[in-house]
């Protein structure tokens, strides 16, 4: 790194503020990003990282403050402004057309740069070679893995001439081995003079790859540190502003009573391709079974088959000794299946309905919400009040619409609702995704209490620490199969990661 590069920072943000109705997303943000470094921006969910990056990428305009890029003050009113001055962004959710080739995806919207033919193809090859991306311009994106798709996204940004690249939680979708490969790419980019802004809340990764770290809490910058000066715990405490909770199970409560038993379960998609193969497991009363896996390997399908939204091609599901394989979703839920869905907005709530009506959802046939064929609003309202206070749902009242609550409070409400009516099985899909640390600790507490109360709990999560901390047993799902079983007392995230990619041998060579 040369002296004069350091002299002019790549990006200087001064006093950035952004308000949304009812929310101060950012205020008094001050960040200096040195040219040619990897700068990590850390903070818990909802701290304001994404808003800040959207401001920097021109998606949103700040209400106050100034942005300077390479020493020049700029005003960005659209992403094309940002691209024009060399700022590019790689979003967490890929924006790629599956049925297009790498080349077509890259040139889409940037046809002016080098056309759509061989010029563009050569340029893409060149970039891919320069940074070790190992991408063929003529491969179809649908044939690529997650890591490769992410490299396509980065390539898109480089192709448009970006020197400053923002990566929004790039590792969220990757397994540990892919993360290592990504970091190699990032270091390569840095060595060639690019500046990288890396948003994350995974602290180990941040500490291993970043040159500088800025911590954001409650919408503002609270600290700028060097990775050498802090450890993960200190960084986490800077993030949450208090001492960290951690998921940890107290002594075993596993009994020998099997509550959920899944035998030789298979599921096919509409075209007859297998989505779940030979799934076999049992969960006992008082046991938490964790399912680890890279997203899209059959977790969603497994949950939907157990809950009855999808119908298995073969196999048997037993709940408390009764075969439920052919039962409707409603009948299964009536028997005592609590369900915390992975996407609470789509599957767990009626966003524009008041909380007390949401109390009825999923419990339409059970007291206290109904009396015979009729609804029982007083009963539902009273019980909503109980959930709100017992589960610490922060809301002005039970007639507030679900949409108005924050993610954490919505989730606490769902957990409270699903723990009502004496469930015997709790299915929790990514229960703490997108919730703040406070709510996360509360939800962990509730899941542990469910276990203590003798429920069988099926926990699906992408957060390996959560899985290891809460589960009594961990099984790994890969391409619709359960491929490995681990004891969380002894397993490491690395071992889980290897099993999740099916790359045990390769990872052992590496480590």
């Amino acid at each position, binding site marked *: 790194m040369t002296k004069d590069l350091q002299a002019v920072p790549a990006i200087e943000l001064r006093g950035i503020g952004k308000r949304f109705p009812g929310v101060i997303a950012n205020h008094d943000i001050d960040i200096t990003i040195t040219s040619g470094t990897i700068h990590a921006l850390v903070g818990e969910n909802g701290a304001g990282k994404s808003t800040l990056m959207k401001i920097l990428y021109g998606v949103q305009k700040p209400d106050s403050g100034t942005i300077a890029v390479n020493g020049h003050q700029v005003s960005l009113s659209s992403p094309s402004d940002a691209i024009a001055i060399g700022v590019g962004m790689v979003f967490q959710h890929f924006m790629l057309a599956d049925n297009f080739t790498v080349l077509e995806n890259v040139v889409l919207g940037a046809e002016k740069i080098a056309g759509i033919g061989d010029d563009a193809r050569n340029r893409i090859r060149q970039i891919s070679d320069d940074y070790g991306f190992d991408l063929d311009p003529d491969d179809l994106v649908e044939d690529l893995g997650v890591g490769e798709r992410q490299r396509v996204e980065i390539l898109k940004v480089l192709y448009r001439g970006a020197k400053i690249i923002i990566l929004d939680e790039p590792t969220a979708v990757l397994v540990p081995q892919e993360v290592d490969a990504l970091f190699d790419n990032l270091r390569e980019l840095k060595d060639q003079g690019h500046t990288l802004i890396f948003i994350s809340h995974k602290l180990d990764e941040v500490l291993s790859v970043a040159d500088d770290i800025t911590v954001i809490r409650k919408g503002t910058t609270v600290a700028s540190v060097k990775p050498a000066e802090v450890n993960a715990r200190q960084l986490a405490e800077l993030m949450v502003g208090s001492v960290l909770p951690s998921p940890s199970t107290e002594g075993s409560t596993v009994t020998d009573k099997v509550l959920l038993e899944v035998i030789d379960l298979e599921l096919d998609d509409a075209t007859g391709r297998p989505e779940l193969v030979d799934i076999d497991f049992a969960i006992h009363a008082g046991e938490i079974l964790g399912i680890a896996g890279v997203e899209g390997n059959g977790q969603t399908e497994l949950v939907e088959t157990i809950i009855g939204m999808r119908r298995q091609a073969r196999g048997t599901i037993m709940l408390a000794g009764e075969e439920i394989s052919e039962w409707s979703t409603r009948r*299964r839920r009536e028997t005592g299946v609590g369900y915390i869905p992975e996407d609470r907005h789509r599957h767990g709530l*009626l966003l524009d309905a008041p909380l007390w009506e949401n109390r009825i959802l*999923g419990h*339409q046939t059970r007291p206290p919400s109904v009396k015979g064929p009729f*609804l029982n609003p007083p009963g539902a309202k009273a019980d909503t009040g109980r959930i709100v206070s017992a589960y610490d749902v922060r809301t002005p009242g039970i007639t507030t619409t679900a949409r*108005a609550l924050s993610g954490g409070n919505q989730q606490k409400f769902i957990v409270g609702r699903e723990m009502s009516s004496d469930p015997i099985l709790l299915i929790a899909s990514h229960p703490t995704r997108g919730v703040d640390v406070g709510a996360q600790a509360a939800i962990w507490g509730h899941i542990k209490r469910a276990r203590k109360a003798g429920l069988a709990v099926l926990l699906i999560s992408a957060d390996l620490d959560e899985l290891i901390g809460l589960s009594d047993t961990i099984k790994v799902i890969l391409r619709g199969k359960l491929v490995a079983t681990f004891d969380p007392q002894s397993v490491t995230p690395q071992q889980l990661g290897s099993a999740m990619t099916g790359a045990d041998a390769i990872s052992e060579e590496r480590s």
Partner: protein
Amino acid sequence: MSRWMRLGLPVAAVVLALVFSGVVATLVLLFTGDDVVGFWRVLFTWPSERDLVDIINMTAILYLSGAAAAIGFRMNLFNIGVEGQYRLAGLFAGAFAAQGLLPGKLNVAAAILVAMAVGALWAGIAGVLRVWRGVSEVISTIMLNAIAGSLIGFLLVKWGESTGNARNTKMMPEDSWTGFFRLFPDVSDGAYHLSLLAPLVGIAFFILVYYTRFGFDLRAAGASESAAVSSGVSVKKMIVVSMLLSGAVAGLIGVPMMFSEAHQYGSAFQTGLGFTGIAVALLGRNHPMGIAFGALIFAFLGQQANLLNILAGVSPDIVNMTQGIIVLSVVIAFEVIRRLATRIEQRQVATQLDAERQGDTALKGASA
């Protein structure tokens, strides 16, 4: 959100939309050089007693039509086929009543059931196609409208009677005729007896949607199909059932007038009410009370339109246009209001929680 806002905002939206439509109609009239003052004078003339009776009857009929459409809308089903359903139902009910199989009013009751059954079955075809083959109910109901029209013509030619140039079903026996509620001493007829079906349907609709499990499932499926499915609602079943219900109510549309006035199915049977019902349902936000309001406005405007040509020399088409603008502006106004209300509510939640949080911090400070 306060109760006042919950009720006040929608009313404000409707008033604004009406005012806006009036302004647009005025501008159009100014542009075409028509008699603006005359237009407004006619529109705001208190209707004669005779016209009031017509307005009341039309309100009842449009209410049934609006309710039929609204039941589908609640479930995100666009039953465009109310038109075909009620015409076919009218034909079968008229033909059935004409047989006189049952004595007097029992015959009427049975004919009403026939109308509901035929309407339900015709709509049910679209429902079954949707869940069985994934055919959009919009397409299938539009096609079923066309088929219903041809089928009616065919059946009338085959089994109907001729009166002059027109083909009708047989006249029903006189003891099956229903009369009128006399509203004004000087007007010989009044509200159709069977217009009472409208409030009955309204009350049943209200209880069904807001106070039963079925209604909750219906609303849940309409608001978020994915959430409804996870909660155990069988969406396929809901689609078929709500199409059947929608069609059954549609079947009633032609009944009040047929039994009180025409006493047979034929050329006097008013068509086009099914399409108006869609507008009425939109105007009434698919709410049982709102639909009543929407039906009243449409009935009133429709009646006044008849006078426009005579009294002000303005084409009554301007009223059709105004009705269209009202529907559009109400839809827009409600969307604006919905967003506004969400924003206000989110702000309230945020303010309240901020206050709480500060309280928490203060507490912590004190204990430390």
